[in-house]
């Protein structure tokens, strides 16, 4: 009987383990580097939002953004939008790297990117375009 109770205990303990693990840590995201990346991305978002809505720019499945249909942007602005996309991607890469570094686990970068990739899409407004797992463009 004791052994049964013991087993039950073990089970309970095992069930609790993930909670203990996940409740244990909030990720550190308040470093100056992350702060300044957030700020520039926030400012850039004012310029990008229209292009997400038009479908010219979409969210990729690897946590970045890409020019989806350049024809939706006037010729004179195409390179500027290309530039915005490149700058945003640089910031996003830096952001994922910084979060991993700030938490003392540089090797988490890829998993942080994957997490972000899902969350960006989740939080995207309807009508925006994003890539599915196969890399094909779909409209939200």
């Amino acid at each position, binding site marked *: 009987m004791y052994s049964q109770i013991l087993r039950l205990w073990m089970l309970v303990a095992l069930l609790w383990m993930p909670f203990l693990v996940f409740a244990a840590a909030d990720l550190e995201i308040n470093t100056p580097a992350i702060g300044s990346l957030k700020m520039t991305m926030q400012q850039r978002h004012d310029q990008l939002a229209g292009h997400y809505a038009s479908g010219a720019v979409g969210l990729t499945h690897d946590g970045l953004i890409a020019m989806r249909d350049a024809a939706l942007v006037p010729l004179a602005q195409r390179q500027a939008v290309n530039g915005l996309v490149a700058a945003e991607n640089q910031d996003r890469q830096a952001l994922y790297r910084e979060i991993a570094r700030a938490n003392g686990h540089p090797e988490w970068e890829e998993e942080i990117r994957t997490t972000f990739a899902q969350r960006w899409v989740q*939080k995207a407004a309807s009508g925006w375009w994003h890539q599915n797992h196969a890399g094909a463009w779909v409209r939200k």
Partner: protein
Amino acid sequence: MRTLPMAMAVLLAATVSACVTINIYFPAAAAEKAADKIIDEVWQLKKQGEAPAPAKPDEQK
């Protein structure tokens, strides 16, 4: 029958220490929470009223 509480204590200790070692795995839920917080700020998804307070630890008096 003191062995049971002892066993439990040992088990608990083992569980706790196991947690510490498991902790090196990627904290998916925390990462998701962090991602949500950053995305909300970058895309300004939260209304003004809900805006998170400036990120400053409490001033120590």
